[in-house]
């Protein structure tokens, strides 16, 4: 395994930050498109600099820590959120060559571990804020993310069984003939839903349901600490989209176009789908969310594992 160039390691987080910032603008424009309006289109060409303007605004806001908050944890929480998402990107293979550690033999487990750690950001934020709405949001986030963690892991097992490896690079190369979305369509759907729940995006954004919890776990946050949560969420969308691309849509593979472009296209389409979900769907009730997880997604992912295992065993040589 060759050492990745230092430049890649420095540039990757910067690129992700830039993309996450850009995504705030993309989301607002796309929501506008689907709601028959324009969205921000005044600052810069097509409103492109709106993201920069928002960033400057957040930077210059008073960075206020409530006197009743647990100061150390309060500061730590957004940093954890950002860090776990950023670290996950290390194992994503953008192309066969462009990645930091895509040959890591526990790559997929690493991503799952980082996503589980991401729960801490939300829970600690809710706990350290020392206010009831933040705590309720944090509790919801804990229950939701830990539940969906289970199906997320289980839904991935099918892919791992076919490939016989946890390395994301191997998983992509195993899809050179057929993308895993076809043999693993159940796993794909479960993983996508779990991914939405993991990034607590609409329609599964109950931890921050603004009409009942103020803003949920980040109620007490302001300035750039709030911005960190915000950016971590958008980076999370990119991460889940990139993961789905890698695991089920054949990663960088595709005819004619260069691999980087294929990866970007697939990821971009999934990001757009995430935003379409936000534009179209209402938020479910909390028990409905849990019921969907445990009563539908868990059996489906278990059946998927059983079916995949049976097929693999029947086709196994000897």
């Amino acid at each position, binding site marked *: 395994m060759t050492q990745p160039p230092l430049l890649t390691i420095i540039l990757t987080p910067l690129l992700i930050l830039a993309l996450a910032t850009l995504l705030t603008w993309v989301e607002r424009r796309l929501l506008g498109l689907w709601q*028959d*309006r324009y969205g921000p289109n005044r600052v810069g060409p097509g409103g492109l600099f709106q993201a920069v303007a928002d960033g400057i605004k957040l930077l210059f806001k008073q960075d206020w820590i409530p006197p009743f908050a647990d100061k150390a944890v309060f500061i730590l929480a957004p940093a954890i959120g950002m860090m776990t998402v950023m670290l996950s990107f290390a194992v994503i293979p953008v192309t066969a060559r462009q990645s930091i550690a895509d040959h890591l033999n526990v790559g997929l487990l690493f991503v799952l571990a980082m996503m589980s750690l991401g729960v801490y950001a939300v829970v600690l934020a809710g706990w350290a804020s020392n206010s009831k709405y933040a705590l309720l949001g944090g509790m919801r986030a804990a229950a939701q993310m830990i539940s969906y963690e289970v199906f997320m892991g289980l839904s991935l097992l099918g892919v791992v069984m076919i490939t016989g490896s946890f390395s994301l690079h191997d998983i992509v190369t195993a899809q050179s003939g057929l993308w895993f979305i076809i043999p693993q369509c159940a796993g794909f759907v479960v993983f996508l839903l779990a991914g939405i729940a993991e990034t607590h995006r609409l329609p599964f954004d109950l931890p921050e349901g603004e009409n009942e919890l103020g803003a949920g776990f980040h109620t007490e946050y302001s300035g750039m600490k709030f911005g960190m949560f915000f950016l971590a969420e958008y980076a999370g969308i990119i991460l889940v989209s990139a993961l789905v691309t890698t695991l089920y849509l054949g990663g960088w593979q595709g005819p004619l176009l260069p691999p980087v472009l294929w990866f970007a296209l697939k990821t971009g389409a999934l990001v757009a789908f995430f935003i379409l979900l936000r534009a179209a*769907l209402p938020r479910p009730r909390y028990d409905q969310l849990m019921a969907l997880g445990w009563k539908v997604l868990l059996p489906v992912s278990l059946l998927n594992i059983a079916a995949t295992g049976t097929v693999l065993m029947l086709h196994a040589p000897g």
Partner: protein
Amino acid sequence: MSGTLRTLFLTFLHAFRRRETVQYPEEKPYLPPRYRGRIILSRDPDGEERCVSCNLCAVACPVDCISLQKAETEGRWYPEYFRINFSRCIFCGFCEEACPTYAIQLTPDFEMSEYSRPNLVYEKEDLLISGTGKYPDYNFYRVAGVPVPGKERGESEHERPPVDLHSLLP
């Protein structure tokens, strides 16, 4: 489940619809003549001020944004000053409804932002326009029964001469 997918699809189709937004500063919407915007004071067809400073508009105003003072020349009333505080005005149009002489009128213009609040207080010279507004031929003194210099009682339009109460003839 199928309902969810249908919702997603229908929302996606909205990408190909026309956008409803009016791009305001570049593209101005049509405002009908009765739009309730900036308030003006109009003049009658002879070019005289219509306002007779009866104070009905100030009484009707629910936010007390109109202030005026009566003055008199040769039996005619006119406002010595007429002041509207547009930082208070709610553009309800009650003043226009209350006005017996069609002097105060609301116009289809709302672009009156200011950087400083005192600049929103309009004086009579800011409010008074040279035209007749929405009622081009109306002149209060020509139809009202009140006598003014140059017009005695009974000489108004559609008005019969006054009955002589001291005469016994029918």
